[in-house]
């Protein structure tokens, strides 16, 4: 069978503002297991980009190694992609972003790729506030090597071959908050209503936008005893708010009861409108996010939604004070000081 999708399109398919159909944002047919949560996330990415009217070639998709890192093949076939080495996608993204600040960088990683082998690079990408969307498709196990526990597997959870994980899990969301990430969200692959606007908001955020997306592994980690199974996650979700992403040019159409909604304005003029479900909730307050996260955790619940956003975020290029033109567009005349300047330099060494 072929995994290449036919490029034929029905002429009557609806188009977005810039004339692309939803299918123009799709990729090759997935080779992941049927029912894999990752495929739903790919679908959400396609939906988010289509709705945002993003030109597909103005986005670069990057990944590491693992099941999750295969997914960039399955969305945005008109975007350049880079499937790098295990755990090292953040450094590739950093270099790419330094070279061209004008593209949107979408990184996809897994819990093995991020919380184990790639922990160092993940941490430092947060520290530098690299302007990218970083999605972890989190299933608590190593799928591609057949189901070993990952560092995000909860203590006591049981793998397919019956091994009990004796170690405590790493909570990437809590860690990202502690590290100073400027955008932190968590969602569930089965909740597209929440995930699509979260991805859109993340793409509009000027800085490191981290999304931890629980994505059950149907083959190796979907047993009732697993805390990353569909049933468990569905039963324990606690959403902080419902979210609407409102692009700059659109009117706000969703209306919430006074006092229960909060508008978060993004740098490009777009807004995130949150309908708060949790009391005393302020997603622009890091401290309150950390507290709520621990409260939920102690009750065995999984807090989802936009957990924190720093509206004053200054990204890596701003921190480095680089020119606005992409560095990869600079030519000899911009870059080369010339022979006369070199002669002055020679003179300083005589």
């Amino acid at each position, binding site marked *: 069978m072929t995994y*290449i999708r036919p490029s034929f399109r029905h002429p009557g398919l609806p188009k977005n503002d810039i004339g692309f159909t939803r299918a123009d944002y799709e990729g090759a047919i997935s080779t992941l297991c049927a029912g894999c949560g990752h495929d739903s996330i790919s679908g959400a990415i396609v939906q988010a980009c289509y709705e945002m009217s993003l*030109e*597909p*070639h*103005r986005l*670069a998709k*990057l990944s590491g190694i693992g099941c999750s890192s295969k997914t*960039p*093949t399955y969305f945005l*076939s*008109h*975007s*350049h*992609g*880079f*499937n*790098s*080495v295990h755990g*090292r996608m*953040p*450094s*590739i*993204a*950093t*270099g*790419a*972003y*330094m*070279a*061209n600040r*004008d*593209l949107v960088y979408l990184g996809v990683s897994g819990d093995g790729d991020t919380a184990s082998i790639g922990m*160092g*690079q993940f*941490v*430092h990408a947060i520290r*530098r506030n690299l302007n990218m969307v970083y999605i972890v498709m989190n299933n608590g196990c190593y799928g591609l090597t057949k189901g070993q526990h990952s560092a995000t597997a909860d203590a006591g959870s049981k793998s397919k071959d019956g091994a009990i994980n004796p170690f405590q899990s790493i909570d990437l969301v809590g860690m990202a908050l502690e590290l100073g990430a400027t955008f932190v969200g968590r969602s569930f692959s089965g909740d597209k209503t929440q995930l699509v606007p979260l991805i859109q908001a993340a793409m509009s955020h000027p800085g490191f936008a981290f999304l931890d997306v629980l994505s059950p592994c149907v083959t190796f980690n979907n047993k009732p005893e697993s805390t990353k199974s569909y049933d468990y996650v569905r039963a324990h979700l606690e959403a902080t708010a419902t979210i609407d992403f409102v692009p700059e040019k659109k009117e706000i159409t969703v209306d919430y009861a006074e006092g229960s909604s909060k508008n978060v304005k993004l740098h490009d003029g777009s807004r995130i409108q949150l309908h708060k479900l949790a009391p005393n909730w302020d997603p622009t307050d890091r401290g309150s996010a950390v507290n709520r996260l621990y409260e939920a955790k102690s009750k065995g619940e999984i807090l989802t939604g936009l957990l924190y956003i720093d509206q004053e975020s200054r990204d890596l*290029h701003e921190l*480095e*004070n*680089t*020119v*606005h033109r992409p*560095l*990869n567009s*600079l030519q*000899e005349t*911009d*870059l*080369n*000081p*010339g*022979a006369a*300047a*070199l*002669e002055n*330099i*020679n003179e300083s*060494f*005589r």
Partner: protein
Amino acid sequence: MQQLSGVNDMVVRFANVNGTGSASANNLFAKSIVRMGIPVSPKNIFPSNIQGLPTWYEVRVSEKDYLGRRDGVDIMVCVNPQSMMKDVQSVRPGGYFIYDNTKRLHEEFIRDDIHYIGIPMMELSMKNYRDPRQRQLFKNIIYVGALSLLLDIEFNVLEDMIKDQFKKKEKLIPPNIQALELGRTYVRENYEFPLQLRLERRDLVGDRIVIDGNTACGLGAIYGGATVVAWYPITPSTSVAQAFERYANRLRIDPETGQKKFAVIQAEDELAAMGMVIGATWNGSRAFTATSGPGVSLMNEFIGLAYFAEIPVVLINVQRGGPSTGMPTRTQQSDLVSTAYASHGDTKHVLLLPANPKECFEMTAQAFDLADRLQTPIMLMTDLDLGMNDHLSPPLKWDDERKYDRGKVLNAEDLERVKEFGRYLDVDGDGIPYRTLPGTHPSKGAFFTRGTSRDEYARYTEDGAAYVRNVDRLVKKWNTAKTYVPAAELYQDGKESDTGMIFFGTTTYAALEAMDILEADGLVIDSMRLKAFPFGAEVEQFVEEHDQIFIIEQNRDAQMRTLLINELDVNPGKLISVLNYDGMPITADNIKGQIINELMPATVNHK
């Protein structure tokens, strides 16, 4: 007692304590000799330490323009009691031992075959300066003052240098001049001067400059158009990225906004540094990293990705003593094999082999053209001696007519024109495919970069035939690379001898000097300097033409010899190793001794 004598031919060694400000005084000494028109070659022999351990600075003065190291110390300036025993012993018979006689020299340091010159450096400094830090610093300038009279260094040269150095801190000029005078006055009142071993103004320096290789590499990257630098601090390469940043902050700032036309990222480790370079070049910037052997070891996985996915990379490897942490502050050429074949699977990489700072500059700039042209990692192999020591080098040159070669990159118009785009299609028959940059065209030219096997259209495949086509094309590209890299340099017109010698990099100084010495002894050997790997046809021919060839290199395992045997299918028996791997730059005497020993074993004992 014998007294070493002569003009403009000596080795002066300073024994100091690390972190006491001796470097600038010693540099003042060396550079003043250059300003008198006499060639010098200074070497810093320093510990892996910031403060307190012994450190040495060695200056070879050579009217014959020999810039390699020479064994044996003619004049030892010893201001470090810790190392004094070793320092006394290192002086050649008839040589001079200059020391601080504020305290009496213990008898165990007295040899009857060398000359002792005591200067009360500490006492003079204590009497004339009050601030403790100043006392320490001016003690060093005092011995430079003393040396200036003993060796006949022109005082106005020293004065001018002090004035240049403190142009922005004029207050410091008079106390520095005073320190020089203190040393001079003491010599004037207590010793006969100058020594029989002395200096005399010449005009042998020409337009040459005194610069270290790392600074030249940093400048080469500025001129070569690098915009992204990602690096992790490691001796002896650290000053490459720092030099780039220092000059970029002067030469690459937008005058209107004050914003930078470059980005320097200090990565969290060498792996990340290499990842950032790959990300940046994949996205169309020129980017590089500078590191040393341990860094290359860490970058191996990414180097393989860059090779296989065909992404331009420039890596500057300032080699140091290995293996493992090895001798981080000593020099070696011992990363040849590990860099040439870095990473798992079948990989091989282009190496450039500069021999002086001018070549560091040129080859760094050229490395960016080669990386873009060949879409593969280009490794510039320098070493601690070249990178961190000052060298008398021809001036750096740039031709304003020169354009960067950005290689085979398709822009949006090209994509409209070409019938089909296949990222790994060999369109031109040279093994080099065309690439596109992210963001170029709304519907054409996008492809997926990956380290897994793929077909000509960058589609994932596990088909063995497609894999073989791809890796065989990489061999074709490798052969193409042989015609792009700098050719080896020959030191004779045509063949003059059945015996040859091959050398490269910092070994060149000593090898050329050895060639002169051997020739004076009536032994003519054809010489060739390698400038790159893979080897061009001229290297193959040289090896073919000579019956026995000495391969001179600074590592234990004869790594260049290994590369020659491996790549040229040569009879290993023809290639004789001349090696030095104690961490100090190789000397001409050492080379000569090993060659004579091989050619005329019986005569060695008589010499």
